């Protein structure tokens, strides 16, 4: 027994630095959610003698008229992002797979995958410039077709859809490549057999391609469910402005403003805690479903 332990000891030692890091930078902040139940005064410190207020912070938030709006914005923006973010890459992967020319196929893949790697700071800067109503190239282009100027980033009717469209634009290349990789794994013999039986393009897509990647579709859908309350902080933060708070403010940006700008630490932590609990439930369920239906295991 003792020799076994000695043989194992190096393995435990290897884990030590990583464990120390996650305890310091993940678990201690997790303990910090107690701020949600306090009237937190930063000067007294995280583990200092703070005044406990029970659920006051939660109550306060629930009664804010803007909170319902923020919750609604979050769900609306993220669910549309999720749905389009699943369907559009699927369609593109199927269309790309139909291309006969490998040169075009590879070039298209390269081009659509590029925005995925750029930060929302860079993309935010680009979008602010090209979508501007004064001299932005998109409005100029629309003007050629007689469309009057649209203030994409400053108009409450347009802002959420601008967020959704630009998110899909940034990320669909990634999804396309995942689906395409799955399609490549389908046995080509199936297509040949179908061709001999007289199947056309649509038959083959419907009866071979889609069933062939069904598992990947299920897996991606299920895993994305866990992200329902993440409507995209990086993106919104870089694109929004006070005039579109009404339609574009999401939980994460709300937490940032009430917490760090208004210094209402307890209230902001309460909102964050609420979000984390629901997200945890969603993510755990999505992992459970992914295991159930797609035999997906993370470890």
């Amino acid at each position: 027994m003792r020799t076994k332990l000695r043989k194992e000891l190096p393995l435990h030692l290897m884990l030590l630095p990583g464990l120390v890091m996650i305890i310091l930078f993940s678990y201690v902040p997790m303990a910090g959610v107690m701020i949600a139940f306090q009237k937190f005064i930063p000067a007294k410190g995280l583990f200092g003698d703070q005044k406990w207020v029970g659920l006051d912070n939660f109550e306060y938030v629930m009664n804010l008229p803007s909170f319902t709006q923020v919750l609604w914005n979050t769900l609306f923006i993220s669910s549309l992002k999720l749905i389009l973010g699943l369907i559009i890459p699927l369609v593109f992967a199927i269309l790309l797979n139909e291309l006969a020319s490998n040169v075009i196929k590879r070039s298209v893949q390269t081009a659509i995958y590029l925005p995925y790697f750029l930060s929302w700071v860079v993309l935010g800067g680009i979008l602010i410039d090209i979508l501007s109503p004064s001299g932005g190239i998109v409005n100029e282009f629309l003007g050629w077709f007689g469309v009057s100027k649209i203030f994409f980033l400053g108009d409450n009717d347009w802002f959420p859809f601008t967020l959704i469209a630009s998110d899909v634009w940034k990320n669909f290349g990634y999804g396309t490549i995942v689906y395409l990789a799955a399609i490549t794994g389908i046995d080509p013999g199936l297509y040949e057999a179908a061709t001999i039986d007289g199947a056309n393009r649509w038959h083959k897509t419907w009866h071979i391609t889609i069933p062939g990647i069904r598992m990947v579709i299920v897996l991606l859908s299920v895993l994305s469910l866990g992200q329902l309350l993440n409507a995209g902080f990086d993106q919104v933060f870089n694109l929004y402005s006070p005039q579109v708070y009404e339609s574009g403010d999401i939980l994460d940006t709300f937490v940032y403003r009430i917490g760090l700008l208004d210094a209402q630490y307890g209230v902001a932590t309460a909102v964050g805690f609420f979000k984390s609990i629901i997200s945890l439930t969603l993510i755990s369920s999505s992992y459970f479903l992914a295991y159930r239906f797609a035999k997906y295991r993370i470890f």
Partner: protein
Amino acid sequence: MTTVHRSKKFDGISVLNATFLILVSLLCILPLIHIIAVSFSSSAAASAGYVRLWPVDFTFASYMYTMSRTEFWQSMLVSLTRIGIGTPLNLLLTILVAYPLSKESHALRFRSVYAWAFFVTMLFNGGLIPWYTTLKEYGLLDSIWALVLPGAVPVFSVVLLLNFFREIPKELEEAALIDGAGHFRTVWSIFVPISKPALATLALFSMVEHWNSWFDGLLLMGNPANYPLQSYIQTIVIQQNLSNMSRDAMLDLALISDRTLKSSQIFLGSLPIILAYPFLQKYFVKGIVLGSVKG
């Protein structure tokens, strides 16, 4: 029936499909090309909206101006330091955590406890305020360590690498152990060399992550001199009012407009990614296939 083995025919639909896909690809890269064109155009041409996809009155003026700012070089240095410390640290910890976790539970006591401890950090976090407060209490604000330590263990990379380690034949490890190598030696002399492609992928993940991060810099650095490049760009391109940059001095130059200046900064902020893109794409495709479609 000569087309039996060629399911991809050349017909009207194919042409339509190819045209559509090419148009969409253009939609993905033209905005970037437009910004580059604006950044190299004269202030007058850019303000008048003459610039489309090619610079008008070609000039380096906005780049000269950006590069003459000490803030720009300072933040570039912070970004490079961040990558220089952050990426090796990420890789080292990923290897050290992934190797023990890739063992069976009878070979490592408490394996599943460890695995869950790491996994939970992907599921739950304290939220913004507790995170900020903790880092403040550690005295990390305004230090480079605030940018590299909180993300030191990239759990997703650990998962990818441990799955990769499991594919390595057991015999190799057994042979090493019989020859008297300890676990540390085995990791270093056998697992690391075999895993070079996977490690290269993870290194790229980490570098892109560090390069693109901006919010932690903005939040944790009180002094703008400590901003990494993306945070610096965020403050001047996205936030309108700048305290630390004199706009009057900028307007005095008259050769550059706000628009060309911002465009040049956007381009500089994405330049390393664009340059590394051929490698990035190749490795990331492998990486995401490794990570997402397993199972």
